[in-house]
């Protein structure tokens, strides 16, 4: 027997195990895509084909960004693992149905390039790419991102309706036939979540902890306590399901251990609840999750379960919940309360900022004035109106406030009136109207105009507003074509203001 065999006949050697499970990264990602399909399909059925285009744009943009990045930095091509598809799809499901296509394009670009690739690619990012991109889009394209439409008409989302005290049809929330993001169908999301739980794509810890802690928080601090229907709507809207089942469970940005996931879920739930109850936007869950993402490395550092052989036997009366879990929950609560405290403290500042904003609009409509001061006579006249619409022939026009504009010398140059019309197509229209002392209009500026984009919204454009300058009644003003309701409401409100001023003008 030869001591050595020829090299060509030698067999492969390697350390074990020499059998590997069938699961691959691509299959894991594919499972997530499959789980998101019900919500995607229901979304497209509800919002129409344009929303399919939004989804497609986001997915393609994500894949393309990753492919180009890998090519540019000469990294092994990684688009085959499908993680970019997941990111694009998740992002698009969190977008309003009628966003301009550059929004999903830029969002996916941001998610893949800045949040994922720059941090080292798959598995290295510290925040959920889709959600971070969504928050970026909310800041960068606030109008497009919060313009929720249904059948081409801007419509309040269930959450906004709830905030206004209106009733929400839970059936429509489930079917996803309400206004909202593309992936807003509770039924579609739940179906996908059940699929993921069955195939082991997600574990129960994070969704359970998130939903439970969120519900408890809303029940305790929300508007209606533990009323089941109220809680159900709060749970099924505003991205709570999407967040709890699909976003918070993103394996890369959540803790890997079971107790760590429970703590993390509680943090996400509490922050979501806090931001929803105390915050100013509807996007509480997005912010809550990306903030919780930042706590994950700490959770992973302190919440390391011991091997079974080193765990205390439960029958010996050892604590079931580890001390670290309690500590972290406490940290979460304290952080949450601190944040709400900061909000309360800064609330007055916010009010002052709003005042400053009004002052800016005052200056805009009455450019000659350097200073503004209340006028007792006008204030008394407004108080006498008692918040009721002014006059009978001006629709529901309400005079909110009147203020005198003065020169540095103290001489009055004119007045600014704040007027709200309740007859807008989409809700209230509020504007500031500048008048000279003899009642000629010097300018009009809107502080609240949520009319249909491309139609009523055109009333805010100079083409319409400039017509008011230099006139003392609205007869020469032409309505915006296609936005008669909005135009008429504004003209009525201007007439009401002029009439009010004529009747009460200080001499």
């Amino acid at each position, binding site marked *: 027997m030869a001591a050595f065999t020829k090299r060509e006949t030698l067999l492969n*050697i390697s350390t074990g195990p020499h059998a590997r*499970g069938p699961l691959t990264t691509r299959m894991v990602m594919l499972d997530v895509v499959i789980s998101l399909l019900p919500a995607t399909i229901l979304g497209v059925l509800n919002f129409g084909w344009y929303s399919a285009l939004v989804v497609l744009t986001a997915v393609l943009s994500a894949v393309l960004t990753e492919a180009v990045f890998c090519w540019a930095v000469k990294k092994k091509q990684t688009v085959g693992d499908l993680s970019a598809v997941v990111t694009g799809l998740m992002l698009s499901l969190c977008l309003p149905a009628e966003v301009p296509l550059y929004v999903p394009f830029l969002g996916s670009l941001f998610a893949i390039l800045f949040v994922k690739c720059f941090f080292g690619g798959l598995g290295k990012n510290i925040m959920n790419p889709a959600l971070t991109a969504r928050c970026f889009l909310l800041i960068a394209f606030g109008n497009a991102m919060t313009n929720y439409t249904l059948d081409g008409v801007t419509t309040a989302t269930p959450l906004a309706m709830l905030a206004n005290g209106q009733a929400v049809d839970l059936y429509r929330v489930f079917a996803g036939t309400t206004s909202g993001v593309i992936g807003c169908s509770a039924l579609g999301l739940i179906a996908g979540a059940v699929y993921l739980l069955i195939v082991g794509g997600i574990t129960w810890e994070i969704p359970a902890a998130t939903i439970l802690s969120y519900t408890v928080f809303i029940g305790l601090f929300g508007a209606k306590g533990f009323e089941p229907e109220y809680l159900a709507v709060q749970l099924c809207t505003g991205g709570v399901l999407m967040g709890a089942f699909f976003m918070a469970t993103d394996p890369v940005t959540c803790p890997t251990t079971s107790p760590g996931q429970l703590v993390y879920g509680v943090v996400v739930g509490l922050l979501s609840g806090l931001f929803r109850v105390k915050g100013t936007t509807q996007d509480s869950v997005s912010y809550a999750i990306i903030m919780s993402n930042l706590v994950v490395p700490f959770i992973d550092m302190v919440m390391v379960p011991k091997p079974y052989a080193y765990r205390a036997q439960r029958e010996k009366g050892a604590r079931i919940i580890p001390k670290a879990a309690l500590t972290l929950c406490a940290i979460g609560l304290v952080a949450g309360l601190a944040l709400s405290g900061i909000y309360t403290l800064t609330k007055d500042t916010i009010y002052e900022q709003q005042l400053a904003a009004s002052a800016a609009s005052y200056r805009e409509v009455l450019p000659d004035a350097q200073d503004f001061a209340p006028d007792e006579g006008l204030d008394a006249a407004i108080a006498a109106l008692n918040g009721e619409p002014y006059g009978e022939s001006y629709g529901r026009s309400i005079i909110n406030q009147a203020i005198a504009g003065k020169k540095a010398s103290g001489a009055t140059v004119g007045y600014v009136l704040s007027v709200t019309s309740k007859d807008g197509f989409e809700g209230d229209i509020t504007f500031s109207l500048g008048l000279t002392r003899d009642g000629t209009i010097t300018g009009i500026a809107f502080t609240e105009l949520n009319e249909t984009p491309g139609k009523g919204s055109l009333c805010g454009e100079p083409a319409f507003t400039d017509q008011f300058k230099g006139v003392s009644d609205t007869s020469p003003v032409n309505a915006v074509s296609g936005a008669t309701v909005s135009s008429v409401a504004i003209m009525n409100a201007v007439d009401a203001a002029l009439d009010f001023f004529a009747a009460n003008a200080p001499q």
Partner: protein
Amino acid sequence: MKTTFRGGVHPKECKELARDVPFETLLPTGEIVLLLAQHIGKPAAPVVQKGDEVKMGQLVGKADGFVSANIYASCSGKVKAVEPRRNVAGKMVNAVVIDNDGQFTLAEGVGVERNPEAMSRQEILDAVGWAGIVGLGGAGFPTQVKLMPREPEKIEYIIANGAECEPYICCDDQLMRTYPEEIAGGMKILLRLFPTAKGIVLIEENKPEAIAAMRQACEKVENLSVLPVKTKYPQGGERSIITVVTGKHLRLGMLPADVGCIVDNVSTVRAIYRAVRWTEPLYERAVTVSGEAVKHPKNLIVKLGTSFQELLDCAGGIKEGVTLKKALYGGPMMGGAFADLNCPTMKNNNALTLFAEDAVEKAFSQMTACLKCGRCNRTCPLGLQPQMMAAAAERRDYEYYEKLYGLECVSCGSCTYGCPAKRPLMQLFTQTKAEIMAIRKGGGK
């Protein structure tokens, strides 16, 4: 008693290839190479020289010290050489090489019937030591050492391990189906050593014939029962078995005896029976030859020292139209890979598994970055956190690796099997553990 443990994986069993093939005795034609280190502990010292005539069952290597084992000739013939030969792992080990005369003439005194009932405790222990019996399940730890715990009265369970959780391997299954009386007889002998203990034959549920056969055989022995357990890898691991039977978990450095257990593979138990009752030293064992690349997967009774190439030839060689890519001693989960089949069988080799496809090669092509999905954490039968351990090991943070109890890892490979990113976790842990031990030995240099 539970029926399973936490964690674990379900690799494809693939036992159907050979599970119903009855044993066939392989009489080797080529030379016999008896490695003198086939066990954990010190190698045996050769007691024959070149040119000596030997008979089957004759001592050729004598146990050198307490943790060592005797080596016996497995054929008759002339000693060709006492020289280093390559073992399965590719290491050169001193060996007695015998020119096989093909007669298999038995040595004197071998095969003499004895009555175990009439033997004293010491006589039984001596017989086990004399026969050179080591853990035949794979560990190769000298059995008589295991049978002499410091506090014998604290032993509660004697467990015969018939789990056989490795895919492809079915020689223990066949052993239990073919020789249930001998295994029960071996357990009876062990129970005599520990009168206060209970005997358990632990078998995975995927072996109903073996369970039935063992149940029947165990009925006749007092204090002996069969425990069917769920089919799950690594049920056959000593720690998993102890967890199922006692509910306790072993820590690093603890012996099964510390929690009142002695665990022996069923083939070891049978060897004990043969040694005590029939004065038969360990010179042959059951081996499964299986895998997708083999023409006729088989269960063989193999004379120790036979070349693995002869085992493959006996099983019909490689299938037509197939190229052998990987050959393993043992099963795919815990087994090691050969570079060359021309090396001798040892006491702890329970299988020869041959593949036309290399799963490791394929996994390497599918490898991605870690997703942190945590599947490894959930499958670890010890409750370790392989994901965190791997991260620590990759950045050479050995201090943190130890803090994560990384040295506890038994290299069962469950984490690696289930990893969707195909990370080589077990390899990393094996290497890291070795490095940490080397640093400790070298005084931190």
